């Protein structure tokens, strides 16, 4: 990685943290549990890396690690979004 590439990644990281702070301070306390499970599902984005490892041509230790990572990440993504939806369905106004 060139230094400039690294700096670009750090730019993205820092700016995304600011966006996150701005967005999340506006979430009302009543939605804090769904926020947590929903954002938790987003952190399952690491599934993309798991797919790349589990789908390699030759079978290596990387593939095994990728497969386990893929199972974990899928639990995180599927479980997170479903349970969040289950909760949000219940929030009703009078």
């Amino acid at each position, binding site marked *: 990685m060139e230094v400039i590439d*690294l700096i670009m990644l750090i730019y993205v990281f820092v700016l995304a943290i600011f966006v996150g702070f701005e967005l999340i301070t506006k979430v009302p306390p009543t939605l804090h549990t769904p926020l947590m499970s929903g954002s938790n599902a987003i952190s399952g984005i690491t599934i993309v890396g798991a797919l790349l490892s589990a*789908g390699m*041509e030759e079978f290596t230790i990387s593939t095994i690690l990728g497969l386990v990572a893929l199972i974990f990440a899928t639990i995180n993504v599927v479980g997170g979004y479903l349970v969040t939806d289950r909760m949000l369905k219940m929030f009703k106004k009078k």
Partner: protein
Amino acid sequence: MQIIIYLTYLIASVLFIFGIKRLGSPKTARSGNMLSSLGMFLAIVITLFDQHILTYEYIIIGIVVGSAIGATMALKVQMTGMPQMVGLLNGFGGGASALVALSEYYKEDSSDIAILVTLVLSILIGAVTFTGSFIAFGKLQGFVTGKVVKYPLQNPINVLLLLVVIVAGVLFVIDPSRVDMLLGILVISLVLGVLLVLPIGGADMPVAISLLNSYSGLAASMTGFVLQNNMLIIAGALVGASGIILTIIMCKGMNRSLMNVVLGGWENAGQETSSGGTAPQGDVKSVDAEEAAMIFDSAQNVVIIPGYGMAVAQAQHAVRDLANILEKKGINVRFAIHPVAGRMPGHMNVLLAEAQVPYDKLFALEDINDDFNNVDVAFIVGANDVVNPAARNDQSSPIYGMPILNADYAKTVIINKRSLNVGYAGIQNELFFYPNTLMYFGDAKEAINKLVNELKEL
């Protein structure tokens, strides 16, 4: 193709941001979650077209197994078990990030310092999140003691382990062929996760879960650096920020520093018995269901204050019935929710939503606290420390300075509790002995059902 993939990742990142933005209101929240899951779906599907993916057998196995487990967990879990569920999900996310980073190490020989450093960080944060979350899950589920666990040399041991990780990390970055260093970091990080969460007491779990939530995001971000993938960095950073904000809100809700919570907190926290000492003494007045019903019947303004005890007794439906019958009698009923009530941020809100209490009846501390002077009856269900006036008046109290709900300002305070036992902070609640306080003893669900039946007869 690679260009299309990257553009789709950009769309996915935007969908995540919009998804969280729409969580800003209960009206739009559900669609927000769907947008965010659409982003995830797009990201997964387009990745399958990546030129590096050549076989699909393991991918299919992984996705089928993971989906089956995840869906079963999500559909089976009870609303009272939500803190455990979120704890587990944090753990899987963190574990996945650490494994992806490790897999990346075996895949490609890299001597790039930035990649190696973030690889170490991803493994460290991911592994701590993994075991830490499982301990948190165990504490919430009751497998692991919910008490504050203190072990000898607690802090020196943790600092030492962290130093070992740093030294091993430096050695690994200098010589990336040292796989022993990397595996050592993994093992120590797994141990650290256990040691860091073990001391945290049950009622401090909202902080622990928020913090682990943040870690799971940061681990994903670090993996994003390893893979040089902007989408992972963005998504991880959003989650990292979310967890940190919730952590700060929870700590403020208890007027404590993060360090104080993480290191095990109050001296008597989580103990079953009172330490005695300055415990307030005096007469306790108690009422039965009939008397309590008459007091409610003559009120105009009622505020219900739920706490963890309501979750334990699964009393949210009974509480809803109580609110309904009072409203039928023309009484104004509102709910006051303390930020740290329950075992995770927003725990009470989810339980009451499950019981179909409209969310516009739920008020946060700062929105209702000035109004307690006009309240006829404050009804406290399974809450304790968060209504202890000692937090306002007693400078020697360990909870002094903690924001509390001003239940004691109400004309009458009725407290439903099983006994006069102390709360999590390990101190007696002086509110029990106030002249305007009435204790209504009993299991929350049973006692409130009885109360509702009495009210029906009035």
